[in-house]
């Protein structure tokens, strides 16, 4: 593996963290969906590059799944759901962007500090990949915590799953069976969530999840 190969792997994995930050920054629905598609595409490129580096053909299938399902089908479907729910014009009240970003930076720093000492015996790229993957996962969590709209929480969940795929790729790839089943479970989770979105809206006339808190009797 030449230094340039390593640099490209580093570049792609780092871009995934960057796109996670861009997801946190978006406050419009369509922009959010477009950036999620970009997230999945960057993941696909990253996995594809790893497949080429590790000479592991099954990773190409992983990349293809990421590109097809998460890069195209799910964003397009979410696009339609958003239009049908009639929330494509709403600007989401993101809990002030500045502190969220700072918190995100702290999470990235945390995952670097945690991951690098733990993985001392592994190779350089595994360590880098794992550190970045953990940051993507944590940023996905952060997105789910800070957003109130159900659709953006779904996006947060999916970006979190992208981080898991990145981690699995770095660790010499996971078996294809596992990969396919994870891919399908995400798709099924997406279907369930899609149905739930409409049920929530039917019941509460909104997909703002704070309405649910009020229904449970908690203060808003």
């Amino acid at each position, binding site marked *: 593996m030449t*230094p*340039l190969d390593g*640099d*490209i792997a*580093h*570049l792609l*994995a*780092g*871009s995934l*963290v*960057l796109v996670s*930050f861009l997801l946190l*920054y978006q406050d419009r629905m369509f922009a959010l969906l477009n950036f999620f598609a970009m997230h999945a595409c960057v993941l696909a490129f990253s996995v594809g590059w790893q497949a080429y580096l590790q000479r592991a053909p099954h990773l190409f299938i992983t990349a293809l799944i990421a590109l097809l399902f998460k890069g195209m089908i799910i964003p397009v479907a979410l696009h339609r759901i958003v239009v049908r729910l009639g929330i494509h014009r709403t600007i989401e009240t993101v809990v002030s*962007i*500045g502190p969220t*970003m700072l918190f995100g*930076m702290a999470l*990235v*720093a945390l995952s*670097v500090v945690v991951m*690098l000492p733990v993985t001392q015996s592994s190779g*350089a*790229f595994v*360590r*880098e990949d794992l*550190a*970045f993957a953990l940051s993507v996962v944590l940023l996905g969590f952060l997105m789910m915590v800070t957003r109130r709209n159900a659709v953006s929480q779904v996006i947060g969940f999916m970006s979190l799953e992208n981080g898991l795929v990145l981690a699995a790729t770095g660790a010499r790839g996971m078996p294809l069976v596992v990969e396919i089943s994870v891919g399908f479970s995400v798709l099924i989770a997406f279907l369930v969530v899609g149905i739930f979105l409409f049920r929530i809206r039917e019941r509460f006339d909104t997909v703002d999840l704070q309405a649910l808190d009020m229904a449970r009797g908690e203060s808003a």
Partner: protein
Amino acid sequence: MMREWLTQLGQAALVLGLAPLLSGVTRKIRARLLRRQGPSIVQPFRDLLKLIRKETVIAENASWLFRAAPYVVFGTTWVAAALVPTFATGLTLSASADLIVIVALLGTARFLLALAGLDVGTSFGGIGSSREMMFASLAEPAMLMAVFTLSLFAGSTELSSISAYMLGPHGGLSISLALALVALVIVSLGENARIPVDNPATHLELTMVHEAMILEYSGRHLAVIEAAASLKLLLYLSLIACVFIPWGTAPSTDGTLAYAIGLGAYAVKLAVLGFLLVVFETAIAKMRVFRVPEFLGVALMLGLLGTIMLFVSRISR
């Protein structure tokens, strides 16, 4: 030794002569992109000459600071611009003056201009100064983070060494460099009052920042401030060219031919960067003043992220 001094002095003269020309070229390209004829590219020189010949009107309650500030602003900006290697590396002063000195010189200029804006006591000057300071509180840390990323990458804060390192075998693709580049571009848009942040060609009171601060200036004071503003634009473009597209810059050991190539390469780089700047400016609209801190905050965040990622790749190798 003699030769390094000559390069240094030649560079100082070059940036001074080239800066108004660069403004003229960008204005011309912008006009052509908007399907206007536009003024000639030497118009900024004519404007400067006209302003120098005109009478200088000074407000009654202006202090000495108001009269002194333009010259100090011009001086610091000129020195800072002369410190960035343009066509040749190996300048005399580059050992004692690194990137952090350049940031500090620009900070001094900004501080004095803000003070001068407040000095006369008009409301426009005050609003301009307060907004400038609000932007600066984010732009300066962002610039410093980008500088830190670059110097950690190259192992030096000196621009000549950074440029040489990028040309060497260790320079290469890195996400940190890309992040530092984007951060630097955002900072330079903000610092030079270019379009998404401020419009250099407007005098609409509600939106102006830089123009509001210098509203009270006229005659030769205004000429000096305008010259300093165009030098600052040249400085940022040269900085980006020097670090991210270092090809063609003459090393300190080569002969006259290398200097000629360096000059040609520098002219091409400036033209390309200026063109990209103008295309970017025509493609987007100016943002609200209260959106600007978010925009500059992105630069700060990118710089920070770049440093963290550099840390990861350094530790893990």
